[in-house]
């Protein structure tokens, strides 16, 4: 019975070891004979273990937040809001516009009756944030009311936009699972640049696209007669504008946006996948019903009833957004609503019944593009577009020489440990060294299996793991020695030693794993990198230091009927 038990243990250990070893040094494709030569193994090893920015280097990207675009949009929105506010208050105005140029941003409203200028100003400022004198300086001349953005406010708003962009990029990088990038502001403060360094990634172009995706989502009211009439579209922009009035101006509460209709899905449409309907134009109401800031979640899902490879994005709204949306859809049954992404109408749907907190974005997405878009929607819209200024690949931030020195020092330390264990524990020391080697192989295998990236903080985790692995063996061996000294037979001393030490080992390991899980779940950057290797290493250690070590002892003891002495 004991023999059978031993056999099972050995089979488990051999299978796990071979599996782990293959994960570490085997290629991720059908192996050839060449992969098991020395150079082949080295090559697989290098491609299997992903190293972080500090150990291997990566890309160096400098980007600029187009804050002038942010200020332009803000000014335009305010100018539309100001005109609407004046009209809503019952004043007659000739028109209004945003005047932008030479680094200045003005909101201008032309009134018909200059004597009412002050009344109109008050009415506008009551509803629109133009009344904040730290941001907008007011001046009036004749029929013209003018609000000018102050220089100080321009700087402050632009800085805020940059900080916000930095935070959004940070959350997108995290969502992409890129390990320990460095993200910092770059250049003079007025440059609004961001420097991103990240370790080598599979598809850098995709990452760049995701980072600069604006993801401005709006749900808008599409102007036109209600269903059953089809949604009102126009073949050209001019035609759309003309429908508003013959003068060719767009009133402040309307916007003309491009719309590319999705191909109707039919059984035989698969042979012309890339064919799209010509671009059309629609008139929508502004401001939008709600925008992306009201999103609670967005996920990519396969299209309902579409082709298998078609994806769409389901989104849900926060409480406040849902209330607004529900109220609006409830009072606009049978009218048309559009989903606008980055200023382009993606889809138009008529409102069948009141909708509260969810919706779809459809429009011929592949799985990848739908998932990328969902990711950027979840992380929030960038306040302004981003442009890449500079792209380089850089070497490890720790320096090649430091890494070599570190590796050398670690090997010295490891050699010390091995020599001491063999010297002090003799035969059982071999046991400990086998457990230690197995621990390191399986730890690397674990890191590879979880797709973790190794950085210096990760190596700190490995150091702690090795320390605790050695400790496990020392605890067991010292305990066995104690039991032997108290006069027990070898078999029962080994038994008791393992039993007693196991309690301690479980306590130390579980404590550290519990605390590392906190670090892993809530931590970022180096803290997380440390926790990943530590958790994997300690789980592996319970196997290598306890199970494997125990098996070797069982095997030693099973070779003879009575074992009189133990080399320990």
């Amino acid at each position, binding site marked *: 019975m004991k023999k059978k038990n031993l056999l099972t243990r050995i089979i488990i250990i051999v299978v796990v070891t071979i599996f782990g070893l293959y994960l570490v040094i085997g290629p991720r494709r059908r192996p050839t004979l060449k992969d098991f030569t020395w150079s082949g193994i080295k090559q697989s090893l290098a491609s299997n273990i992903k190293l972080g920015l500090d150990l291997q280097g990566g890309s160096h990207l400098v980007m600029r937040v187009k804050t002038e675009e942010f200020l332009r949009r803000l000014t335009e929105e305010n100018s539309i809001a100001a005109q609407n506010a004046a009209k809503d208050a019952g004043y007659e105005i000739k028109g209004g516009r945003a005047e932008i140029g030479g680094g200045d941003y003005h909101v201008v409203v032309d009134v018909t009756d200059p004597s009412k200028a002050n009344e109109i100003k008050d009415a506008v400022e009551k509803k629109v944030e133009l009344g904040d004198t730290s941001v907008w300086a007011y001046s009036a001349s004749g029929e013209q009311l003018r609000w000018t953005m102050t220089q100080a406010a321009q700087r402050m708003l632009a800085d805020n936009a940059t900080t916000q962009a930095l935070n959004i990029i940070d959350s997108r990088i995290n969502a992409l699972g890129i390990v320990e990038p460095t993200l910092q502001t770059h250049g003079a403060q007025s440059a609004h640049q961001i420097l991103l360094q990240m370790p080598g990634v599979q598809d850098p172009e995709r990452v760049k696209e995701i980072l600069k995706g604006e993801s401005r989502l709006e749900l808008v009211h599409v102007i036109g007669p209600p269903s059953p009439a089809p949604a009102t579209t126009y073949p050209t922009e001019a035609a759309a504008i003309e429908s508003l009035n013959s003068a060719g101006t767009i009133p402040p509460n309307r916007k003309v946006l491009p719309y590319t209709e999705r191909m109707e899905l039919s059984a035989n449409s698969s042979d012309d996948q890339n064919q799209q309907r010509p671009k059309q134009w629609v008139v929508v109401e502004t401001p939008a019903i709600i925008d992306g800031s009201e999103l609670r979640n967005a996920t990519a899902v396969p299209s309902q009833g579409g082709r298998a490879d078609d994806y769409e994005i389901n989104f849900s709204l926060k409480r406040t957004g849902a209330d607004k949306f529900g109220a609006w859809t409830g009072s606009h049954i049978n009218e048309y609503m559009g989903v606008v992404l980055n200023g382009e109408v993606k889809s138009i749907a008529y409102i069948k019944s009141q909708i509260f907190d969810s919706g779809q974005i459809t429009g011929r997405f592949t799985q990848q593009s739908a998932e990328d878009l969902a990711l950027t929607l979840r992380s929030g819209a960038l306040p302004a577009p981003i442009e890449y200024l500079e792209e*380089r690949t850089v*070497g490890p931030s720790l*320096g090649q020489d430091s890494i070599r*020195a570190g590796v050398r020092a670690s090997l010295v330390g490891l050699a010390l440990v091995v020599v001491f264990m063999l010297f002090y524990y003799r035969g059982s020391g071999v046991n400990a060294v086998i457990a230690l080697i197995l621990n390191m192989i399986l730890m690397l295998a674990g890191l590879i299996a979880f797709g973790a990236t190794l950085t210096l903080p990760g190596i700190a985790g490995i150091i702690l793991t090795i320390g605790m692995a050695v*400790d496990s063996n020392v605890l067991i061996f010292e305990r066995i020695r104690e039991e032997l000294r108290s006069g027990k037979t070898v078999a029962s001393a080994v038994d008791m030693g393992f039993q007693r030490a196991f309690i301690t080992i479980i306590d130390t390991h579980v404590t550290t794993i519990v605390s590392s899980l906190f670090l892993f779940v809530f931590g970022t950057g180096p803290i997380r990198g440390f926790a990943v290797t530590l958790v994997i290493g300690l789980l592996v250690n319970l196997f290598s230091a306890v199970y494997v070590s125990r098996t070797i002892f069982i095997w030693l003891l099973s070779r003879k009927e009575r074992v009189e002495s133990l080399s320990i």
Partner: protein
Amino acid sequence: MFQILKDINVDWLGNRVWFIGISVLLMLAGLGSAIFRQATGGQAFNLGVDFKGGTVVTARFKQRPSDAAIRETLANKGVHDAVVQPVTDRPDTVLIKVPLEGEGEDGRAKVRDALNSFGPEAAPATELEADPNAAYKIVGTDAVGAIAGAQLRNKAIAVTLAALVGILIYIAARFEWTYGAAAVIAVFHDVLVTLGFFSVFQIEVSLNVIAALLTLVGFSVNDTIVVFDRIRENRKLHRRDSLYKITNDSINQTLSRTVITNGLVFLSVLALVLFGGDVLRAFSLALFIGVIFGTYSSIAIASPIMVWWEQRIEAANREAALSFNQPVRGGVRSSAKPTTREPITPARKRSTGAGRA
């Protein structure tokens, strides 16, 4: 069998006043240094470019020197803790990140001063190749912000505290909550002493040092649990002994393990300090100090605090049992024999402990 330590019988707890005194002194020294430096216009900690930002200088060379050579010339000119990063798609170019020193300091001038030891810089208007005498040219200087801003720093502290609470709860569940509290206090002690060392000697604190601090927390807790585990076992085996004696015995029984394990870790980390190179020095020093104090604190801090606390509770329980003449909660403890020898907090001093559970 060869053995380092045999039949040790040291009264560790008897020296608790010394131990705790030394620890308090060390912590006060660190705290004093931090406060003094901050108050006199200096900096409590020498925070690296990770935490406070700096200047990144892009230099092109005709013959690019090795990273180590560049780092050395910078150090010679007083620019320590620079990050030297080669640009791999342009082999002649290197990025040099230097931390921000003070208001108005010119990172570019300092880097130029150091790089001049490789030969003169090309004149501002001329290309590097056009100037036959020039060895290098600074092609870009940009300020960079901190990688770990205040937000990340606060989050890191919060996460670490949450992890410590996790440790506290687990140890409390497996032992007693006093054991958990004592272990966490010992960890705080280790981190404070190490940080104090970094403040006194103004060693650069980088993000990697934070990882080293987390490592030392792990080592310290590990050590403490090994001792506590033995105490728990011995309390079951020797119910008649006082906690004081059991704790001393447990420390002595696990001493050979403590010496071997921590000795090995100590030697490995020492190798890292000696041969690991300048860039890793701060990281390895934090580990080195952490290993020493992590070992020390499980014997000298965690155990005395736990014993003191347990005895205090025991005394309170006994008093409560006497005054109400009925069993109290935590009755397992009250079944222990009253401490007659080596009391840490004599029962008679406790007059207001009656409400304690």
